[in-house]
């Protein structure tokens, strides 16, 4: 019976992954145990190591093994610019542009009042302390252009502004190479609303 209960335990554990219901958890468990035991071992070790060694960088809040991550320590980056993103994956997107050489702060979420995520859950105070280190001159808000991302950007801009920082927001509009014909109405409407003088 001990074997059965550890199988149940595994299935139950897999359900903590987003979007994984009882059916897919079962499928995953059987796959790991039956078809890919080596993969299962790697997964177990990987999880264990990550849990033990990864925490949040004291400066950018991204995952890091060291107290301060390599990126925050890098001398090649401009410490006067601080870009705020929602998630680590957004930081990766920014990095892929090769157009930004400042530092980052990862919120690990966004204001989402209907899910009960507010400034306490996102530890806004921590961000304020980081941004007010005296070196940062400009904060660039790169949260998503969803309602939640916009609400986050709005409040952060007010609160950071009140702390004497210059705040900017990444621009929104048509994608590069975008054709009006193939763009969604919402994007075109907003691009029109936020049009700029052509000087």
């Amino acid at each position, binding site marked *: 019976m001990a074997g059965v209960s550890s199988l149940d335990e595994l299935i139950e554990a897999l359900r903590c992954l987003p979007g994984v*219901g009882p059916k897919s958890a079962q499928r995953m468990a059987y796959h790991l145990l039956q078809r890919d035991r080596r993969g299962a071992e790697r997964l177990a070790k990987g999880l264990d190591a990550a849990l033990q060694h990864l925490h949040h960088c004291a400066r950018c809040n991204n995952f890091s093994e060291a107290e301060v991550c390599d990126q925050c320590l890098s001398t090649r980056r401009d410490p006067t610019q601080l870009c705020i993103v929602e998630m680590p994956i957004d930081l990766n997107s920014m990095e892929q542009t090769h157009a930004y050489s400042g530092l980052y702060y990862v919120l690990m979420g966004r204001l989402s*009042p209907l899910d009960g995520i*507010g400034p306490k859950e996102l530890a806004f105070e921590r961000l304020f302390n980081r941004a007010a280190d005296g070196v940062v001159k400009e904060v660039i808000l790169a949260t998503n252009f*969803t*309602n939640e991302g916009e*609400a986050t950007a709005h409040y952060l801009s007010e609160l950071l502004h009140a702390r004497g920082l210059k705040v900017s927001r990444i621009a929104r509009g048509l994608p590069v190479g975008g054709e009006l014909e193939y763009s*969604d109405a919402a994007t075109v409407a907003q691009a029109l609303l936020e049009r700029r003088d052509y000087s």
Partner: protein
Amino acid sequence: MSNKRVDGQPAFVLHLHPYSETSLVVDVFSRDHGRVPLLARGARRPRSAMRGMLMAFQPLELGWFGGGEVKTLAKAEWLGGMPLLAGRCLLLGYYLNELLMKMLAREDAHVALYDAYFEALRALALGGADAPELRRFEKTLLKELGYGLTLDADVETGELIEPDVEYAYLMERGPVRKVGAGDTAVVCGKTLLDMAADDYGDPRTRVESKLLMRQLIAHHMGGKPLQSRRVFMELQEL
């Protein structure tokens, strides 16, 4: 209940929940079918046409089918014409959505409430004075749920409300000429009369009606806390 197909239904997204790696469950408020949860298959895929469209506070036209509790979203069209909510108005928008999500039963049509919601969102989107539309929305919400307000007469004596007299508003009942000291919702007669007329020009009316509505809504929510209000308050304190 019904396995029919619904087409071209005016609706707003109230909230989105990820359902799987690629799909979403969308809680919508539709004009003729009330609150309906819809499964949007594939809406989380990067190239999904629906991905950017399923956004709260924007008028959409939706089509769905299915007989279960959660229907399947078949079609979504962007109606547009409403600027995106911004800033503090976004938080007020969440407040409206939370009220609808917590107070409306599923699949109960409330056309008058839908209209009041639309008007409140429009006022928020235009960023002007929004108090009249917000109060009208709350008033319509309570009325549609069967908790309509009495604003014209003292519920004990039947006497008409006098503008210069103070009244205690008793939950579930209505205004009575103020007597006790322990009354929580105290408003002046003019506020009640202004609310009946949807006239919010007087600053005192704005303050008192807002407080009265807050107490009435808290009462009818049975003590369930409003997350949007908590987050709003926390943001004000920073």
